[in-house]
Structures are given as C-alpha cells and as structure tokens.
C-alpha cells in the first residue's frame, strides 16, 4: 500500500484546485455559521451576498426576495451596482417570477435566447439561480462577471447551488421567526389593552368593588400564565420548525434513488431515531460504470449532528466530484471537520468506489463499523482505512481494492443496526443485535436481490429490537453484484 505517496502526489498535482476547494468548504462553513444566527431577512440577504461575491471573486451581484406580505417583506440586497440600477432590475424581474424559466439556473453565456438571459445581460449579470422556499419560488440570486474575467464553470454552478440550499434553509427559518414575531407583537398589543382596561372595566361593571384587590391579583396571575404560555409556544414552534427544516434539507440531500450501473443493484434506507438524522448515505455517480458509496455516522444525535452530517455530505460530494483519490478525500474531510467543528465532534465513515468496468470495489474505512462482503456463504469484514474523522488534524488513510465476483453481497451499515435492541447505557453489550447476528442475517439471505436483502436484514433487526425504543439512527446500503 503506497497511499501516502499517492496522497502526496495528488496534493502536489492539484495545489490550486486543493486551495480552491478548501476555500470553498471554508466559505460554506462560515456562511452557514453566520447566517444561521441572523433573525432578519434583509440581514440574511446582505450577509449571503457578501460571501458569494467573495468566494467567486465577483464585480457585482444582487439577491432578491419577492415574497411580499406582512410577515415576509420584499427585500433585496446588492453589491457593486448603483442603488437605482438595482431597484430598476428588481422591478423588471418581478413580472418574470411566474414564468417556468425563472425556476431554472440560467448561465447567460449558454442561453442567449432566453428572456431571462436578456434581462441578465441588461444589468451585466451572468448567472441566475432561483431561491425556492417551501416549494415556492421566492426570488433568486443574480451574479455579475468575475474579476478574473473567466467564465462560470459547472463546478461554480454546483457550489452556487449548495450555497443557495443553505440560504433557502435559513430564509425559511427566519421567515417563520418573523411571522411569529408579528404574531407576538399582535398578542402583546392585546395584552396591553387587556392590562390597561379590562380589570377596571370588569370591576366597575360586573364585580363588587370590594373585591378589587382580589381581582387585580387574579388578573396578574392570568397574565403571567399567558406570557409563560406564549414563551413556551415560541420555543416549541422554533424547535419544531428547525427540526422540520433540517429533516427536509436532509431529505433533499439524500440521493433520489439508487444509481443504475450495469452489473450491480443497490438499495439503501435510513431511519432516524428522531426527526433528523446524524447518519447519512450517498451515491455519487462518477461515470456510467463508476459510483461512489458513502455512509457516515456523526457522533451525537439531533440537530447538531444533523447539521454536521449535511456539511460532511456536501464536502464529500465536492471532493469526489474532483476525483481525488479515496485516501486524499478522507484526509481532506478529516482536516476540514477537525478545524471547523467542536473538539468533541467526530464522525465515522465508510467510503467506497465501485468500478464495474474493472469489476472492483476500492474502499477506505474511517473508524466505521466494518462493512460486510458476503461471498459463497463467507463474510469478510472490510476494515482497512484509519481513524475516525475529525479527531486528529492530519491523518493518512489506507485503502483496499477488492475484485468483485458475481453474486457478491455488500452491506454497509451504521452502528444503529448492530446496537439495536439496547438502551443508550447498554449499547455495544451482549443484548445488542450485534455483528454476528448481522452476519448470519446476511448469509441467510445473500441470494436475494439488493432491496429484498435490505428488507430481510431490516426485518431481522426490527424483530430482534421489538419492544425497545430506537435510540440511534439506523442506516444501511446493500449492493448485489449480478
């Protein structure tokens, strides 16, 4: 294994590309961190545009939201253009909002006949990306030319789209908070009126004035209860909305369905323990006969783990999209996570690439439960790789290449499968479903197609764990070679 040499060579060969990728990943991290703390649509637009201008090196840009009602004011932010120009363009774009082409990414240099391309050129914009919140087009982002005077590439558009997902996510959240704030303002007005007039009116008109002291005491108590109730509702709404939002972002990022690669069949499933999942799996098509398979488990659960999972998934796609070797990909992800998450945060990850032209599986296992390759009734545990991601700043991972044979079954899974049937306190002990039962389930059902094998293993896990509450995310990828 000479992965260290390979990694060194890859870094040397792609120094510019690597610097660019690290810069892009840092941008995603910093942007997400900054805008997620904002509670005002305009602030989100201004901060987002600042990062977009910086990451692409742009001369100008505009970001606009047309969703106009009391809770969602029409807003736009711009840089590098005069206010009058920005206002005029904002107004010119509005009639186009219901047109189907507004929902598509538009690169003006590639779409000379589109009405949108004409509108973009009018203000020297080059690219348009819609912003869709709650499945509705709220507006979009228009970008001007680069300082470098180079054209926008497919990689740029991909990064731009990833940034837009983050912005949409935050906008949806912020809009909800603004709506809630409006509701709270209304409630406060009502409470103020009640506080000012109602007790005296009731005292004067209905009740015996001799009970005035008692009544005032009761009204204060009612008001306090009302305020506490509103505060709790606000907290609950924000939490539910955050969880729902994170769940939807995760669903959006999950692959739509298994990739179609001749000679293999793939199935996958993820069942979160709560509304959002700290596991993720992904299929990353690399060519008509190559696909990347990733499955990761972030330490912890709930919202924070889900956010890190989303970030790690995006970063993985970017590295794989750049065709870095597998050890280099894991080293970059490791360094990125080390630098940008808390010291206690880490992830385990299995990443493999299937090449059906060569009929091989090349993988690296970053501290993840061993994937299992079943061949002729024997199970081989795939453990080559290295440490978990995010604990050590620098780590060089190993990889292994395995020749695939007909009827091979590969099962990649998170520890939610093998820990099923336990409680958080007893996880990993004797009463867990465990790796031996998982092996037995795979061997017993190895002749089934991928989806049926996945169902069979899930069924065994569910039967074993029946009666105990699921406390960890359960995620599996199953691949069968034809």
């Amino acid at each position, binding site marked *: 294994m000479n992965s260290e040499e390979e990694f060194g060579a890859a870094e040397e060969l792609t120094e510019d590309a690597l*610097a*660019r990728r690290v810069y892009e990943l840092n941008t995603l991290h910093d942007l997400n961190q900054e805008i997620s703390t904002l509670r005002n649509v305009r602030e989100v637009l201004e901060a987002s545009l*600042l*990062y977009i201008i*910086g990451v692409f*090196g742009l*001369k100008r840009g505009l970001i606009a939201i047309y969703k106009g009602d009391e809770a969602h004011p029409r807003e736009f932010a711009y840089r590098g253009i005069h206010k009058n120009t920005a206002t005029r363009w904002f107004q010119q774009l509005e009639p186009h909002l219901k047109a189907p082409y507004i929902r598509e990414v538009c690169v003006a240099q590639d779409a000379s006949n589109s009405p949108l391309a004409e509108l973009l050129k009018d203000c020297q914009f080059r690219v348009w990306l819609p912003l869709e919140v709650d499945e509705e087009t709220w507006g979009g982002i228009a970008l001007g030319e680069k300082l470098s005077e180079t054209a926008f590439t497919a990689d740029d558009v991909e990064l731009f789209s990833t940034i837009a997902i983050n912005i949409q996510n935050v906008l949806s959240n912020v809009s909800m908070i603004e709506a809630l704030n409006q509701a709270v303002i209304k409630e406060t007005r009502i409470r103020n009126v009640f506080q000012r007039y109602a007790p005296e009116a009731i005292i004067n008109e209905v009740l015996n004035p001799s009970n005035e002291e008692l009544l005032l005491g009761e009204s204060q108590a009612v008001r306090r209860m009302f305020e506490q109730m509103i505060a709790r509702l606000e907290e609950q709404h924000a939490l539910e909305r955050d969880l729902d939002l994170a769940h939807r972002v995760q669903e959006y990022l999950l692959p739509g369905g298994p990739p179609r690669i001749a000679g293999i069949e793939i199935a996958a499933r993820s069942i979160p323990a709560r509304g959002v999942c700290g596991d993720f799996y992904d299929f990353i098509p690399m060519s008509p006969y190559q696909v990347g398979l990733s499955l990761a488990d972030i330490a912890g659960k709930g919202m924070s783990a889900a956010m890190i999972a989303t970030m790690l998934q995006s970063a993985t796609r970017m590295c794989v999209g750049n065709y870095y070797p597998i050890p280099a990909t894991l080293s970059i992800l490791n360094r990125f996570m080390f630098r940008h998450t808390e010291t206690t945060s880490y992830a385990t990850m299995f990443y493999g690439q299937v090449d059906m032209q060569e009929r091989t599986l090349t993988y690296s296992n970053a501290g993840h439960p061993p994937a299992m390759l079943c061949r002729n009734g024997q199970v081989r545990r795939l453990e080559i790789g290295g440490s978990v991601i995010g604990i050590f700043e620098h780590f060089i991972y190993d990889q292994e290449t395995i020749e695939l044979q007909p009827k091979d079954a590969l099962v990649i899974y998170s520890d939610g499968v093998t820990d099923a049937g336990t409680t958080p306190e007893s996880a990993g002990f004797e009463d867990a479903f465990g790796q031996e039962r998982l092996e037995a389930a795979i061997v017993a059902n190895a002749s089934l197609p991928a989806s049926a094998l996945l169902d069979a293993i899930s069924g065994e896990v569910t039967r074993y764990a029946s009666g105990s509450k699921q406390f960890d995310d359960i995620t599996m990828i199953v691949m069968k070679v034809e």
Partner: protein
Amino acid sequence: MRRECSIKIHKGDELATIEVVGDLTASAEKAMDAAYQKACGYDTKNILLKFDGKSRINSAGIAIVINLVIESKESDRKIFITGVSKHFKKIFELVGLTKYTTIVDSEEEVVKV
C-alpha cells in the same frame, strides 16, 4: 479560533496605510469602509492594506477587499496589499484580485512600484 479584527490608519508621504490586525470577516466591513474613506481623504493615490501575516481572510473579507479595489479603480487610486500568507496570496490570485491590485513584500516596495 477567530481573532478579533482591529484597524488603524497611518499617513505616509506617498501612501496611506490601512493596517489590519486579526481576521478580516464580515463584521469588519463598516470599519474597513470607514478606514478607506479616511485614507481617501489623505489625498494620496496609493493605499496599502497591511495585514499582520497571520490574518485569516474568509470569503466575506475577500468581498470587502474586492469592494475597496473596485472603488479605488473608479477613483483612480491604486491599492497595494502586504502581509498576507502564501495561502491567501493564492486565494487572491484564484479570485482574480491580483488583476486589480499588487501584492508587495513591504511598504518600501510600494514606493518603488
């Protein structure tokens, strides 16, 4: 760990220096704009952005620099940059900033340029 950004302005004979100590991020935008306006008031054509060699400049910080560079071009001023690490020199090059500004090793070099 992010380092707080502090900005100072010095007026020399032939250039105004905006000295940035710490990390340049979105929160420094107003201070940077104000410093730039003050530097323009010194009636010099050359402005030097002097970083402390350890500054981290994220995308928002790059956008702030881009804004200054574009404004300076429109007002026929020249911006020079010094004190950035090798990594950020590379980033400045990748985003096209080096087409509009000159990275120098020291203040003295500005005078020579």
